[in-house]
């Protein structure tokens, strides 16, 4: 089996690599030592008319199937022969809609364990993309001049990185809370300002902070109200008062028994099918 695959791989390299339409394939290996290689599938980044993208058209290369040991720096280094690289962004999935990027705090968003990822590589010039599409490879992730850590060495480095500085954390928390408090204070002030002031149609917004606070508009609260109503109604109703009520309760009881009986019969049927009645 393996032999067959070998042969196929060999043939593949002779004939040029198969790649899906629109993409070109670039073999990538961890280092010289490896025999087989993964394939990056790359194409220029483009989106449909009308949709916006945070990546610049024409200058961005879209890369599929980036192996887990290949980091942003690494990819940038590997593609730099095609032209100067402006930025590399690795993601778990290709992003379809535009997302707003916030700088992520290393304290609150620890780096996830990498799997196979997709990358958006932005070159400084459009020429980089076309050069990259023509790249033959195989690319080597780890070379002697730029070794990439993996295995035990990587884990030890990760462990070291996970021991963070509490002071930096404190500073970050403080700045966040400061802006948050400011934001809340502003909202509060705005709400106070609007309190009791009718809008142009003459409506007054009633808030929790007013003189006569109202119930908060939550689902739970409205359910509670409904429940109370129901109980009130039930208290007024008479049970087993008329003859027909009697008859109906009896019939209901019988129906329950029948239903139970049918259920039991079904269970027994099932147990019989599973040979549950063989005692030994």
């Amino acid at each position, binding site marked *: 089996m*393996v032999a067959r695959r070998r042969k196929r791989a060999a043939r593949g390299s002779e004939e040029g690599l198969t790649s899906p339409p629109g993409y070109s394939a670039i073999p990538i290996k961890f280092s010289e030592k490896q025999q087989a290689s993964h394939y990056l599938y790359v194409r220029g980044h483009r989106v449909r008319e009308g949709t916006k993208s945070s990546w610049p058209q024409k200058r961005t290369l879209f890369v599929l199937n980036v192996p887990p040991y290949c980091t942003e720096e690494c990819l940038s280094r590997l593609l730099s022969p095609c032209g100067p690289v402006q930025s590399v962004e690795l993601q778990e999935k290709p992003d379809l809609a535009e997302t707003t990027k916030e700088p992520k705090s290393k304290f609150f968003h620890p780096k996830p364990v990498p799997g196979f990822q997709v990358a958006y590589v932005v070159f400084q010039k459009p020429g980089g993309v076309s050069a990259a599409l023509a790249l033959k490879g195989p690319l080597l992730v780890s070379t002697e001049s730029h070794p990439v850590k993996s*295995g035990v060495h990587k*884990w030890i480095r990760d462990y070291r990185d996970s021991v963070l500085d*509490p002071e930096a954390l404190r500073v970050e928390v403080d700045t966040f809370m400061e802006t948050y408090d400011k934001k809340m204070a502003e909202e509060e002030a705005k709400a106070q300002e609007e309190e009791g002031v009718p809008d142009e149609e003459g409506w007054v917004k009633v808030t929790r902070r007013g003189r006569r606070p109202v119930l908060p508009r939550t689902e739970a609260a409205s359910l509670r109200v409904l429940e109370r109503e129901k109980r009130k109604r039930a208290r007024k109703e008479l049970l087993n008062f008329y003859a027909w009520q009697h008859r109906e309760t009896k019939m209901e009881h*019988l129906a329950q028994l029948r239903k139970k009986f049918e259920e039991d019969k079904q269970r027994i049927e099932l147990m019989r099918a599973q040979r549950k009645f063989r005692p030994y």
Partner: protein
Amino acid sequence: MGPAPAGAQFRGAAGEPEVMEPALEGTGKEGKKESSKKHTVAGSPGEGLWQPVKLSRAELYKEPTNEELNRLRETESLFHSSLLRLQVEELLKEVRLSEKKKERIDAFLREVNQRIMRVPSTPETELTDQVWLPAGVQVPLHQVPYAVKGRFRFLPPARVTVVGSYLLGTCIRPDINVDVALTMPREILQDKDGLNQRYFRKRALYLAHLAHHLAPDPLFSSVRFSYTNGCHLKPSLLLRPHGKDERLVTVRLHPCPPPDFFRPCRLLPSKNNVRSAWYRGQSPPGSGSPEPPTPHYNTWVLQDTALESHVQLLSTVLGSTLGLKDGVALLKVWLRQRELDKGLGGFSGFLVSMLVAFLVSTRKIHTTMSGYQVLRSILQFLATTDLTVNGISLCLSSDPSLPALADFHQAFPVVFLDSSGRLNLCADVTASTYHQVQHEARLSMVLLDSKADDGFQLLLMTPKPMIRAFDHVLHLHPLSRLQAACHRLKLWPELQDHGGDYVSATLGPLTTLLEQGLGSRLHLLAHSRPPVSEWDISQDPPKHRDSGTLTLGLLLRPEGLTSVLELGPEADQPEAADFRRFWGSRSELRRFQDGAIREAVVWEAASMAQKRLIPHQVVTHLLALHADIPDTCVHYMGGLLEALIQGLKETSSTGEEALAAVVRCYDDLSRQLWGLEGLPLTVSAVQGAHPVLRYTEVFPPAPVKPAYSFYEHLRERASLLPRPDKPCPAYVEPMTVVCHLEGSGQWPQDAEAIRRVRAAFQLRLAELLTQQHGLRCRATATHTDVFKDGFVFRIRVAYQREPQILKETRSPEGMISLRDTRASLRLERDTRQLPLLTSALHGLQQQHPAFSGVARLAKRWVRAQLLGEGLTDESLDLVAAALFLHPEPFTPPSSPQVGFLRFLFLVSTFDWKNNPLIINLNNELTVEEQVEIRSGFLATRLQLPVMVIFTPQDRKSSVWTQDGPSPQILQRLVVLAAEALPVLEKQLMDPRGPGDIRTVFRPPLDMYDVLIRLSPRHIPRHRQGVDSPAASFCRGLLSEPGSSSLMPVLGYDPPQLYLAQLREAFGDLALFFYDQHGGEVIGVLWKPSSFQPQPFKASNTKGRMVVSQVGELMMVPNVEAILEDFAILGEGLVQAVEARSERWTV
């Protein structure tokens, strides 16, 4: 371990559409619609699943017929529920003999009758002259002493009658026995044949001659001898038909004397019928002393005379009343499941039938009762009546010549007289057998009264073999030692009475001895009954010592196990001498704190594990002292499995003490947290959330004392780091503690802001703990690690309202509604449910000291089978808790061994598909609530995970099994448990020693596609392996605490980090299996679905490559590159990647 089921089967299952994909979303209307569609569309995989019954309105509310009303009313009054009624009917159908088979048996019996009548007679000879017997047959009796007076000749029987259950219609499959009584003609017997075994000798010769003439007949497939009910003086002849009916029936021939041949007054229990002068060849010392009575011998003779009268009695009582017959059949099943009915002195079906007759005669059972009611009445009677003290009698006459019940009590432990008033039906039943019956009856009554849904299943369908029912089991082997014991215990009269059967003669005295010695530690002592052997007619009857082994089962009393002291009387009391005699050299005079000077026995036991095994010391000591049985003959099965949960260094403890030490340290920490000054908000609760804090961590942590030179130092953070040039340091797992802070208006109402505030609290906690208690702390945004007394705790600050805030969503109209989200569920699980569970299980451990051992053994086994990843810690702990909270039909286990066996049994037999495992922690759920939970389960089955565990806190969603196991993993677990159980039980029941007890813990590896071998250098828990290596690497620990206190390396476990990477990168393509306790190999199984070529998709290229197949571009996994990736990702850790490429094709 037996052969693993082929991986192919496992893989086939994986390919099937998953029926029970847990669907978090999909509540509400839409979800329902979808599920009902699933029902009809995916009907085939959902087969074997209960579905809520749908009856049309017309069907439900139609006018009832009389018949229907009657049946419903009958069900209500005669049975527990309609389900039970149906179940009982099904069971009876299963064990009943069909009419067709009955006809075949009848035909066979007629044939047998003819053949017997045609056996030729022989001339009269002396009893000792047996040369007339042909060569091919041996006398089925040990003729010791050989010389005996009397003359014998064979004549065809005067009458051949069918007796026993076959005639009554109460015999049950699968072992159909038809008892046939052959009345010997009066000419064969002479006066005084009751004396000195003469009658039994003749009986044996009679059978031997019969056997010789019946054996060559082609009608029979086998003609063999056996003992009637295991009694060594009374052989019987077994005939089995030839052809396809071979297994259908066994006809047992019992010769019996002509009616009124023996004078009953000669056979009273106080009479002697085996003379010492004859039996021992000498007159008893001090001639003139009375001959010892031979009650058992007399009973055996009497039994033969009463065969027919018993059948007559039973047939008049049971007659044509179906209910009573059903009841007897159910009771027989009940006894058989408990292994009570077999062997000498078993509580046989015949005894139960007689008991029914007795209750009918005292009007406790009415003939209109249903089988279920009969079963219930008998159990009630057994549970409440002690026949060892107050015997009962079927005899109605008040003839003054009849002996009194008291006479029988003197001779027999259990008394139940037949209608003649002279024969004790329970003569061979020992007191401990009867107590076992009583114990079982009591348990069953509790079960019946508890209205449990599956009472029927537990009562009648669950086997209770000795090894699974008793906490400890011991084998006496070889049995020949008992002969010496007999002499030591001075049991000559008993030996004379039992015709030399020293096993049954010693049973009673031995059990009494042990019961007395074990005292408060013992709940119940049971013994196996010697099995009824069969042998060929050309062979000598088996010797007493060949009747297997004697197995004793001990049901322990956990509260008695904690004491190491056996307190005796004060030294000057007269009882002190008895005490000294009883305990021999172990008895010592001791002075106690209250000033008393008493005799006492102190056993050496420091740890819980050793205390559990004190019964072993007691038993071996007493047996050696009083019965001369050396400890090499006592094979004690009680603590063998405990080696698997023992720590690395200590061999005397199973970790309960270490766990308690951690819990003490945790208590201390929580006090410190409570008393912390300077926190802006006060601590409202401190709760443990780690397995250690509920006593279920397989290997309890030891205090860490790092050797600083072994590590790299990160001075500015006061932390140690692993060094790449050294072996991986010891694994230190931080133990999670949840610290709730009080609610306050100061908390922000925004999820992100709450996280920041929590982080600020984590920092503050670290600061304050360092300042006020001098503890080394390290704070991060989500937790604070505290290094205290060598243990590391991970404190997580929690705010009670946070899950709710995460749940809030605002509808367009401004209505705030609560919807579960992934994050809120997770947070709720971690900060609310997990601490609750931890405290509930902590409480369980206080009630049942064996819980820790059972839970840890179970977890250990599951992980050793490489399935630890699929099943969460909590789910396994809960399954173990179920064994204690719902032990029926057993009692809660008191030893890890029996608990583990029951864990395997539960896992392998529980119907996970159709039943939720409801664990009633703290007994919070009422019966009605449980019914409600069950019906809710039925309605939402398809949304729930495959394995469903409900607790009072979690009645709808089965939190702990949401993320696994997958159907395939559960299936695998069930299969493995079903294979491991018989293997382990066989090992433990083997009297020659269990062999290698770790066998069932070694995982089969032949099912995996790729094996990744790891280097032990980087496995920090290498020494915990099932086969613990003799030597491993230094892990940077000191035996003495070092000078400074830097934070040790926490949670650094390279195999786990490696697995996380593998699962992230290749989780779509393969499953990875690993034993976290020192496993040296990772098993990889390709997912068959991912090996199907797929069309190209940008979102699904992970680790695949494009190939052209038949002109089309398809994606297949890039296996060769992936195999190399395995090595790259685990550089340093991976030793070798073994691909078994013959197992797959791309």
